[in-house]
């Protein structure tokens, strides 16, 4: 089959991105799969996946990832959502000031945020424990207590990324036609009815996109764990991405790290698949035509 000229030109223009895709996406992916199914000598083996079944730390990491994911996403999302609603309904002159303050964490480097929270959480000179002492309560070892360390991470993560949910939902709220609210006012709808039947359906797209992006962001999370707790105390804050890093760059076991990366990829892939399958996110993102 011969390509027509138009197709050839099109292909030529697409070539840079195809090359980019092959070098920076496909090659690493193939290499990842190859490493996962071989040992250090390069021989084919399933030992890496077999070891996964016995790996206690991997199991702990998966459990922690689940807690970290559900805790962070729930908090980030609700904080972002309610702050967006409050600010949307606020009509004072300081709107832009508040908006800037709320968005500030998004502009700070994650490592700096980690260091900042490390100081805040410090038992001896951290501001949080200082306030706790003022009200007469015993100080809390936020990062040194195995039962609390993961919660401390979730709180810091929420502070860092809830502005992201806020931004998307707030933008969605700005797009809601004012006529709808005016009509609702004429019809005598209560505030809850306006919220339930006008606001929520109008910003559903933004809500789903915010949820999806927040979720993927949390699943990819690594920086805060690395800076704040280094996985400790014990394995209490080992999440999958951190464990993968430890295996790859502390133990230098690239084959097993690749196997963990594949597991990680499958988890994120499954999550995205479910989101695409059971929500209309593709339509909202313009990836598929909206059903009539």
């Amino acid at each position, binding site marked *: 089959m011969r390509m027509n000229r138009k197709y050839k030109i099109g292909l030529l223009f697409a070539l840079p991105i195809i090359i980019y895709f092959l070098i920076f996406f496909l090659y690493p992916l193939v290499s990842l799969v190859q490493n996962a199914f071989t040992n250090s000598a390069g021989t084919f083996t399933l030992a890496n996946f077999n070891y996964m079944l016995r790996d206690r730390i991997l199991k702990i990491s998966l459990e922690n990832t689940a807690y970290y994911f559900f805790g962070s996403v729930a908090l980030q999302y609700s904080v972002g959502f309610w702050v967006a609603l409050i600010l949307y309904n606020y009509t004072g002159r300081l709107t832009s000031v508040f908006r800037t303050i709320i968005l500030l964490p998004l502009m700070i480097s994650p490592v700096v945020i980690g260091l900042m929270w490390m100081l805040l959480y410090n*038992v001896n000179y951290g501001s949080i424990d200082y306030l706790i002492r003022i009200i007469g309560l015993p100080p809390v070892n936020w990062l040194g207590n195995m039962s609390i360390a993961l919660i401390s991470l979730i709180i810091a993560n929420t502070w860092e990324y809830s502005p992201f949910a806020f931004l998307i939902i707030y933008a969605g709220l700005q797009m809601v036609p004012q006529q709808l609210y005016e009509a609702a006012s004429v019809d005598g709808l209560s505030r809850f009815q306006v919220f339930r039947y006008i606001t929520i359906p109008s910003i559903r797209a933004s809500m789903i996109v915010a949820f999806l992006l927040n979720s993927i962001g949390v699943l990819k999370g690594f920086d805060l764990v690395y800076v704040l707790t280094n996985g400790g105390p014990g*394995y209490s804050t080992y999440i999958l991405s951190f464990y993968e890093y430890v295996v790859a*760059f502390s*133990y230098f076991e690239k084959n097993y790290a690749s196997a963990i990366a594949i597991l990680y990829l499958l988890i994120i892939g499954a999550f995205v698949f479910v989101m695409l399958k059971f929500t209309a996110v593709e339509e909202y993102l313009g990836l598929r035509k909206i059903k009539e």
Partner: protein
Amino acid sequence: MIFKGKSISKTLAAVVVIIIIIIAGVGAYYYYMSTITPSSKITGSITVAAEAGYNDAALEQIAKNYMASHPGTTINVVTLSFGTAVTSYQTAFSSGIDTYDVVFFPNVGYLGSIAQYLINLKPYLSNKNYFPASYNISDIVPSMLSPFEINGSLYGLPCSGDVMLFYYRPSYFNNVTNQKLFLEQYGYPLPNPANTTLTLQQLVDIANFFNGHHGAKYGIIMMTGPDDDDMIQTFLDLFGSVRVADESVLGPVTAPYGDMFSSNGEILSNTSIFKSTLLAFVDLIKDSENPLEASFTTVPGTFARGDAPMMIFWTPPLLTLNNPKMSSIVGDWAVAPRMPGGVSQTGGVGLGIYKGTHNLPLALSFLEYATSPNQSIYYMTLDDLIPFRYSGFSYAISHHLLSTSLIDAVLSNLEDSVQGPANLPYWPQISAAFRGEVPYIFSGKITVAKAASAITAAAVQAGAKVYTGVPPPNPLSGTFNVDAMAGYNDAALKQIASDFMAFHAGTNVNVVSIPYGSVVTDVLTVIICV
């Protein structure tokens, strides 16, 4: 049969020829290495890795000095973020990329995992063209040099020294009330670290005694947090003492951080001494500041605030504890001449050369320069690091950087430290498993035995062998006689023989006392008979 008649002689001849060729090859290599001279004029450029906030200021200065005295050379100093060096090297070198020509090792524990990428410096070190007499290798403190050796090859030279020290506050120990209460509570006098080497049990008792009482907030300050090697370094300092006392059974300790291994390279984490030390260690964590969180960066500050009577830590606080701006315990702190148990761990940083360097002569020349007596002063003056040369310690005293008593304490701890070549290829896994498991014991979620099993399992998974309880074979065994002169040196020789036999199980040394005046006759008789 293969080996018949002529074929045997042919095979033998071939084997002999091969052996001769190998011996000749090795000999020629070493001869070549000892005679080659660097090109008369070294030129070109190399890249040197430094660590931000640790040794970067000194290396920058030394690089400038080198370029000024060696026109035509360029030394690029690349500063790596704190704690990222080993990962950076592994990533670059395993891909065959010569990103760095000269590298520093932030921790000799990791040398085992990157040694394969480094050149053996031994042949160059004995070549006066590369390392002239002025380099004075004997000026380097032996316990600072030996950690860089693996299986007879030397992969680095020290550029700064460090050793774990036991800091204490005399006011707590000299307090009569404290002494009285301690005696009542524990049934023995409160030991004074100035003149007593504490046992592990005494250390635990003292920490328990002071924790939250008698004017102290904590019993002891030490690194117990999750950062890299913080926790295991502290533990090994305590375990080292127990381990060294058992050398006759477990074999000599062969490396700093090597305490956890027998002389056969088997991990000792399943032994009873490991478990009992672990239990004591967890007890100490309970008496320490911010259990499971205290790190390299927080520990000195807490001690400097005066919150505890004792601290186990590296040398950097020596330079700050007498500074009123940084310390509220000026004049009320000291360093014990020996660690609890009597054995310390060396630390320090070294420099090595990447095998794939594109400019070996320049890399060698710079390495010699950067670790020479004159230039090594900069690590101390610009980066507040502890010397690794005896001349550096003299410099510190003459320039009032440290007091003579502190230098003496550092040197005495260095002499007591675990010495020998490091060979720890499984160190990262063991260290991670240790800091992973200990908090679970602390929280009461698992037993010491279970934690020890988990640490052992992690080491085995990484490829380490486990100590099975069988003492390593002793290369020294059998019986021999030693002649001594009655009333002259026989008492001393008998004591030395007794110590020798206790240390080297399986040996039997008979000291025969010969009457004064008949030694020569006896020896001559023996020689004639033989």
